[in-house]
């Protein structure tokens, strides 16, 4: 099959480049990675996303061979590399702190993996020049790392990691030490370069925006496990758990019990769309949470009819924030819970003021049902 992944990246084959099977890592009694299964297709860009301590970096280090797994296996191109030392795994890695060799110039740094592979001198020189060109630092070959900015160093590190055409490219929060503007520019550059090379990328970050921008698929890590794996859209629109709903994007979460196709709480009873209910497949009377994104909520007057197919809850406006392209309302429900609403500007709109008593409304299909706390 010739699949097209969501970002439009053409996958040349449907070969599995990397397969993790029941991967575990124990540090004493603590499971840093508690059973990870993952298949990555050749040419795919996968991001491991999660809070610190969720096991994403440990997983990456096990793939690179820096950390030995306690159980499970790692297959690269169908071969189990679990016992292969790091220098024979043939995977490139980009570190957060660049890890450029300070006593070598950029060109010498990039040439290093080629020397290790005994590439003939002339061919190596050509490859180094090509790699420098790839990261748009053609004339920076003779510079030492300390003579370059953080962004330039990271591009050299990227060139060094891809120059030997590794089977996998691993990136451990490569943009973590850079400022926001540079980070955004490099995100695009890394995407373009990896696409140009058709590289299979495993990217670790705790920055969800970065993950959404760059990835074909995202694996959300939580407590040493992959909580959910899917495209950015999957994760945002159809989170499968409270953790994912809370972690990805802003969300308003209404807690209650699931009963008869609705979430029942003190503040009201809200219908759940059939598709959402089927995905969650919760038992009757089990704790449930209804997730509604800020841009899916509307403010309407308390008086007047409620349209069909819409859920509502009463709220009081506390703050109105003007953010340029959007206006953000902060509101409080009768039980004291805060709720955020984002209104796109530019269309017809009613402006509300603090202390206004309003009604929050959302389409039944805009709510996502997940298991609630204690489920």
């Amino acid at each position, binding site marked *: 099959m010739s699949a097209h992944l969501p970002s439009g990246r053409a996958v040349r084959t449907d070969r599995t480049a990397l397969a993790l099977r029941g991967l575990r890592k124990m540090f004493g009694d603590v499971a840093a990675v508690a059973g990870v299964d993952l298949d990555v297709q050749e040419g795919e860009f996968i991001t491991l996303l999660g809070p610190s301590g969720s096991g994403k970096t440990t997983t990456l280090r096990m793939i*690179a061979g820096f950390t030995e797994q306690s159980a499970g296996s790692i297959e690269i191109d169908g071969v189990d590399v679990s016992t292969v030392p790091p220098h024979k795994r043939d995977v490139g890695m980009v570190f957060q702190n660049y890890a450029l060799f300070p006593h070598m110039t950029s060109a010498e740094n990039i040439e290093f993996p080629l020397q290790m592979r005994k590439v003939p001198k002339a061919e190596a020189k050509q490859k180094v020049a090509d790699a420098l060109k790839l990261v748009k630092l053609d004339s920076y070959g003779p510079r030492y790392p300390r003579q370059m900015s953080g962004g330039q160093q990271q591009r050299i590190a990227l060139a060094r990691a891809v120059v030997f055409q590794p089977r996998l490219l691993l990136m451990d929060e490569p943009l973590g030490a850079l400022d926001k503007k540079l980070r955004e520019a490099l995100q695009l550059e890394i995407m373009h370069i990896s696409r140009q090379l058709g590289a299979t990328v495993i990217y670790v970050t705790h920055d969800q925006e970065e993950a959404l921008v760059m990835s074909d698929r995202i694996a959300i890590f939580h407590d040493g496990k992959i909580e959910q794996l899917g495209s950015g859209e999957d994760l945002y629109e159809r989170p499968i758990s409270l953790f994912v709903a809370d972690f990805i994007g802003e969300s308003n979460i209404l807690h209650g019990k699931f009963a008869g196709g609705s979430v029942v709480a003190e503040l009201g009873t809200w219908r759940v769309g059939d598709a959402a209910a089927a995905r969650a497949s919760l038992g009757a009377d089990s704790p449930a949470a209804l997730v509604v994104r800020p841009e899916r909520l509307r403010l309407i007057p308390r008086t007047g009819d409620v349209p069909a197919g819409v859920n509502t809850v009463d709220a009081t406006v506390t703050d109105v924030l003007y953010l340029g392209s959007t206006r953000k309302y902060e509101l409080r429900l009768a039980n004291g819970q805060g709720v955020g609403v984002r209104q796109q500007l530019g269309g017809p709109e009613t402006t509300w003021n603090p202390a206004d008593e309003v009604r929050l409304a959302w389409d039944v299909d805009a709510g996502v049902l997940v298991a609630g706390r204690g489920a």
Partner: protein
Amino acid sequence: MTDSFRRWNRSLLVVFGVFVIVFLIGPSIVIVPMGFTAGQSLSFPPVGFSLNWYGKMLSDPAWTSGFINSFQVAVCTAVVASVLGTMTALGIARGRFPGKTIANALILSPLVVPVIVIGIGMFSFFVRFKLSGTLVGMVIAHTALSVPYVVVSVSTSLRSMDRNLEMAAANLGANPWRTFRRITLPLIMPGVFAGALFAFLESWDEVVVSIFMTTTKFRTLPVVMWEQVRQVVDPTVAAVATVLLATTTTVLTLALVVRRQTPVR
């Protein structure tokens, strides 16, 4: 309140500094002019100026062979100790084995065990192997004394080195030996070099163990000085001491310069 406290501090510092100069540095400086005396006895202040005693030093085979022996021993010690010390520091910093703390303590023990104890022990031990009074025996003895300096110096360099660099090298295809040769060693070289210089110095002015280890055939410079001072006290000793001091100062300065070079990021 704080002002007067600061002034007190300042004057205490001055007093302390004067004491250091007079009692610590003074005696070693005072010996220098004494070697240039035109008089016949080792005394301060010197009488007149002459190079007689330097001439006597250079013409007496006891001094010259002592100088050559000392230099040979110190250079060999520096080389052997820096190789062993670097390997030891790497093992302690990177290795994982039981009893590491104890091994580390044992390696550093020559720094705290009384030298006289080491001297007596080595003497009785080396005699059995017919190593006392030989270059090899002296180098072994001095190496044991100076390895701790190399270990401390190299360990400091290793601690300031980014471990990710070694992982990056492995990731790029370098086996452990090539990682060491191409990445680790060049980056800890200032520490190795400084350690080698300290090892040289340790051997260069070592007296106690050397006294036990030497025979009439093989004596190092400090031992010759020790024996000379016990027999006749003439200003030649001051001339020799000046040479010893000059060498030490030069090497120490070199070590400090190396230490101050750009540390590894």
